[in-house]
């Protein structure tokens, strides 16, 4: 979706502000927000792709003004509502009522769950459509749903640098439509192809793009 998250190349946000000796968390609630997001995700009712889509679907004004853990918490509330784990009344303070759900992640399971993660590589039976070195165009994809093709490469010509084999297709997985794995490629674009005459000389930018994001040139 053409949401507020798709920031590559946008102007006017001002300088990057590095913070010397930055703490891991800037407030206690940020640590709770991280832990709640991971623990609720471990219930297994939604995928990481669905979580990302819930974040990018927040209203523009919210997305651009909230800190990242606030974005996470607002998205987590949306996911809990969508999957029937909490009600709007409960979020507003009503007495909690039981909801059918898998058992919670136990403390003893945390280390193993984090070590396992969520690998997305999948075996594919179909041959690669593109080969390293080949020129390709990023398609002009503008779906309403989740998509991991950044707007700044749409319609631009790049070169396949690497073939990473099959990976779960985020566009499908985010909407509960299955993993639909496709081949994933690293595609490199010249700076001038993306940004025109003023581009930094010698700049190259790569994205990781699923096969259906690309077309032959």
């Amino acid at each position, binding site marked *: 979706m053409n949401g507020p998250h798709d920031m590559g190349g946008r102007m006017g946000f001002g300088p*990057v502000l590095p913070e010397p000796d*930055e703490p891991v968390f800037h407030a206690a609630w940020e640590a*709770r927000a991280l832990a*709640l997001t991971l623990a609720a995700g471990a219930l297994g009712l939604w995928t990481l792709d669905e979580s990302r889509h819930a974040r990018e679907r927040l209203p523009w004004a919210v997305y651009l003004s909230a800190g990242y853990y606030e974005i996470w918490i607002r998205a987590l509330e949306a996911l809990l509502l969508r999957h029937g784990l909490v009600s709007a009344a409960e979020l507003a303070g009503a007495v909690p009522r039981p909801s059918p759900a898998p058992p919670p992640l136990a403390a003893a399971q945390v280390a193993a769950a984090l070590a396992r993660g969520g690998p997305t590589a999948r075996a594919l039976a179909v041959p690669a459509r593109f080969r390293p070195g080949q020129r390709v165009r990023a398609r002009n994809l503008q779906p309403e749903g989740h998509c991991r093709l950044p707007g700044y490469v749409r319609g631009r010509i790049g070169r396949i640098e690497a073939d990473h084999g099959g*990976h779960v297709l985020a566009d499908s997985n985010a909407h509960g439509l299955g993993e639909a794995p496709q081949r994933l490629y690293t595609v490199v674009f010249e700076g001038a192809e993306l940004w025109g005459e003023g581009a*930094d000389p010698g700049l190259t930018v790569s994205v990781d793009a699923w096969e259906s994001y690309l077309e032959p040139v």
Partner: protein
Amino acid sequence: MPHDHHDHAPDNDLDPMTARVRALETLLVAKGLVDPAALEAIIETYAERVGPQNGARVVARAWTDPGFAARLAEDAGAAVAEMGFGGRQGEHVQAVFNTDDTHNLVVCTLCSCYPWPLLGLPPVWYKSPPYRARAVRDPRGVLADFGLELPPGVRIRVWDSTAELRYLVVPQRPAGTEGWDAERLAALVGRDAMIGTALARAPGAA
């Protein structure tokens, strides 16, 4: 029972996000959806155990062990697994090596993808609109925000983490470190050097 809570402000005095997250946690615990002990274990993992010291050990080993460096270049996931690193947000890892003529810089323009097992949780600036917007278009300007000026002849390669590959920049080994062991070298490898917004520290630099 006010005496049980004498050291806490009433909820209506909390800042909005503290109140919002506390209310959500209270609700999820009451419904049995999360276990408070698991929350503590998650926080402890990322506050205490997983951080850029992991990536620094990988880089320092690559500087001192050519066989490891070759394996890191070929299959970074397997190479860092030799050192016990892997898992969430580091399921698929690629190491990208700075050279005399190419400097690598990592960004996630679409969200905040970052190699957690090697670098811990991302800093605020990495997740912020200024960095996500400008790293792909004006990386030299972004590096200037960090006080880093590369020679004009050095090309910049930006890696936008748009899928589940997570990138680790392997900075160049600083001059004047001949004969140093990996442990000593790791102290020169800061988090930002492994994102690409800094170089490895020179010996004797603060």
